[in-house]
C-alpha cells in the first residue's frame, strides 16, 4: 500500500512534467494540424542549452532556465517561419508534413550529437535532500518539479482563456477564422509554435537537473507527448493532462514491476489500446461526419 502511494507520488510528479510537454505538443497539433515530430528534438535542445548555460556559462539556475525558455521559443518560432509555413503555403498534406518533421528531427538530433557527443549529460544536483510526507518520500527536486510545472501549466491555461488566445484554440477547426477576424495567420502560427517550444523548455531544464538526458532522448519524449495528447483526446486540453498523468503513473508502475526500459513500449501499447476502442481519445468530442 505504501509502495503504491510512493509510486503514485512519483507518477504525479512526472505527470506534471509530461503535462507541460503534452500541452506544447497538443497546442501545435490542435491549432496548426502539424504533427510536430521535431518537438522532441526541440525539447532536448533546450535541455542542452540550459546545461551549457549552467556548467559553462556559470549562470544561476533561474536565469539559465529563462535563457533556455527564450532560446527554445525563438527556435520554435524560427521553425514555423522557415519550415512549417512554407509547407502550409504549398498545401502539402498533413502526413507529408509529419514525415518532413521527422526528417527535421533526425537532422537536429545528429547535429546535437556532433556538438554535444553521445553521453548522458546531467547537472550535479544541489537540492537532493528529501522530505517525508507520511509514507511518501520526495526529494526537494521532485517537489520543485511538481510546483514549477503545475504553476506553469495553470498559467498557460489562464493565458488560453484570454479572448485573444481563444483564436489559437479555434484555429484548428477553422483556419480562415483568423484571417476573417483580421489577424495575420503566419503571426499566429509563429506564436503557437513559439509558445509550445517555450513551454517544453520548462520540463526539459527540470529533467536535466534531475536525471539528465542524452541527445537521442528526443524520440522517447516525443512519444510521451504524442501518446498523452492522442490518448487523452486531441480536441480537449484537459484530455492532454489526463493522458500525461496516465502515462506517468503507468510508467512508474512499469518501472517498479519490470524495468525502466519497457516504459516506451507500455506507453505506446496503451495508446493503441485506447485508439482502437475510442478514436477520439478519452476526453473527446465525437467528430461530426459530413452532413447531407
Amino acid at each position, binding site marked *: 500500500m505504501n509502495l503504491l502511494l510512493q509510486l503514485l507520488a512519483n507518477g504525479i510528479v512526472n505527470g506534471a512534467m509530461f503535462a507541460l510537454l503534452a500541452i506544447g505538443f497538443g497546442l501545435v497539433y490542435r491549432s496548426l494540424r502539424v504533427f510536430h515530430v521535431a518537438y522532441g528534438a526541440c525539447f532536448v535542445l533546450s535541455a542542452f542549452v540550459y546545461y551549457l548555460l549552467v556548467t559553462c556559462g556559470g549562470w544561476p539556475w533561474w536565469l539559465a532556465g529563462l535563457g533556455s525558455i527564450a532560446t527554445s521559443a525563438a527556435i520554435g518560432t524560427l521553425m514555423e517561419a522557415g519550415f512549417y509555413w512554407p509547407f502550409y503555403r504549398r498545401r502539402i498534406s498533413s502526413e507529408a508534413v509529419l*514525415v518532413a518533421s521527422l526528417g527535421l528531427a533526425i*537532422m537536429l538530433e545528429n547535429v546535437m550529437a556532433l556538438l554535444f557527443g553521445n553521453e548522458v549529460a546531467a547537472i550535479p544536483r544541489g537540492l537532493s535532500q528529501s522530505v517525508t510526507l507520511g509514507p511518501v518520500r520526495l526529494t526537494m527536486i521532485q517537489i520543485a518539479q511538481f510546483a514549477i510545472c503545475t504553476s506553469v501549466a495553470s498559467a498557460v491555461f489562464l493565458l488560453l482563456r484570454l479572448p485573444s488566445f481563444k483564436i489559437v484554440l479555434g484555429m484548428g477547426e477553422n483556419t480562415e477564422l483568423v484571417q476573417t477576424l483580421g489577424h495575420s495567420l503566419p503571426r499566429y502560427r509563429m506564436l503557437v509554435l513559439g509558445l509550445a517550444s517555450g513551454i517544453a523548455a520548462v520540463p526539459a531544464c527540470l529533467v536535466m537537473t534531475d536525471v539528465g538526458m542524452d541527445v537521442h532522448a528526443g524520440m522517447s519524449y516525443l512519444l510521451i507527448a504524442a501518446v498523452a495528447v492522442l490518448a487523452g483526446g486531441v480536441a480537449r486540453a484537459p484530455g492532454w493532462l489526463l493522458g500525461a498523468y496516465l502515462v506517468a503513473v503507468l510508467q512508474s508502475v512499469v518501472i517498479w514491476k519490470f524495468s525502466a526500459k519497457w516504459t516506451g513500449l507500455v506507453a505506446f501499447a496503451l495508446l493503441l489500446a485506447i485508439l482502437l476502442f475510442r478514436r477520439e481519445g478519452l476526453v473527446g468530442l465525437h467528430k461530426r461526419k459530413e452532413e447531407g
Partner: protein
Amino acid sequence: MSLIEPSKELPPQAVRHSAQSPDDPVPAWMLWGLLLLLIVLLYAWRPTYVSHLLVMFGIYLLLSTSLNLVTGFGGLMSFSHAAFYGIGAYAYAVARLQAGPSGDQAESIIWAAGWPFVPAILFAMAVGALFGWLVSLVTLRFRGDYFVFATLGIQMIIFSVLYNWVELVRGPYGLYGIPRPDLFGWSLRDSWQYLLMLVPVVTTVVGALWIVYRSEFGLKLKAMREDERAAMSTGIATNRMAGLAMTIAAGVAALAGASYASYVTYIDPTSFSLSESIFLVALLMLGGAGNLTGPVVGTLIMVALPEAMRFVGLPDAVAANVREIIYGGLLAGLMFWRPQGIAGERFVGT
C-alpha cells in the same frame, strides 16, 4: 458525335505522360541487362570492395521494392519496414545457430534450431510475413497522420524488444557466428560467391514484385492510394488489399534481413532502428514511389552516397552523423519539393 470537350484544356504534360508512361518496362529491363553485364565483367576481376557494394545493393533493392508496394502503390507511409528487416535477420539467425554445448551464445538465448540454410530462409520469410500481417491488423485501423505515427511506434516497440529483451536474442550484445549459406554441400565463403547466390534470388523476387505492381492487385492498390472512398465504392476491399500488401512487403523485407544476417554473420539491433526505416523511406521517395524503376534508382544513389562520403574523407565518427543529417534533410526536402520523387508518380501531398 464526340462528347469530349475541346482538348485544349489538357496541359502539355498530359501528353508527355502518355508518351512516357511510368509503367513503361523498357528502361527497367535495360537496366537489369546492364547490371548483369557489369556483374559478369566484375566477376572476372573480383575486387572485394565492389562485391560488397553489390551485395548491399541487392539487399536494399529487396527492401525498397517491397516497401514500394505499401508506400508507393498503397499510398501508406510505413515507418516500420526496418523492423521487419530486423525480424527476418533475427529469425534466420536463431533458426541457423546450433543449440548445445558447442556455442555459449546459443545457451543464453531462448531458442536456437540449428536448421539448414533453405528452411531457415523460408522460416525467416514466414515469420516476417506473419508479423507484417499482425501489424497491418492494428495499423490499418488508421489513416494519414495516425497511420504514420502507429507504424513509427511499432518500429520503436520491435526495436525495443530486440534491444532490451536480452534473453530473447542477447539485446545489444548481438548474435555472432551466424552461418553463411551452404547450398547442396557447397558453402559460400567469399562475397563474390555470395553474390552468385544473391543475384538469382534478388532477380526472381524483384521480378515477381514487378509483376505484382502491374497486376490487378497493383492497380487496386493504386486506386486506393488515389481515393480510398471512391475505390471502395467501385467494390475494392481496400483494407484487405493493404493488409496483403503489408504482409508481402514484410515477408520480402524479412528475406532481405535473412540475406543480410547470412552475409555479415554478426547482427545487433542497431542495424534495424528507426533511422534505418527513415533511410528506407527516403531512399524510396528519392527514386520515386509507385513505379518500377524508382526503387532501383533510389537504391543506387543511396548505396553510393556513403561511399562518396568516404572518398571525401570524413572521419568515421562524424560520418555516421553527417549521413543521418543528409537523410533527414533529404526526407524533408523531398516532401517539400518533389513529393512524387525523382522519377516517380505522385505520392503523398496533393
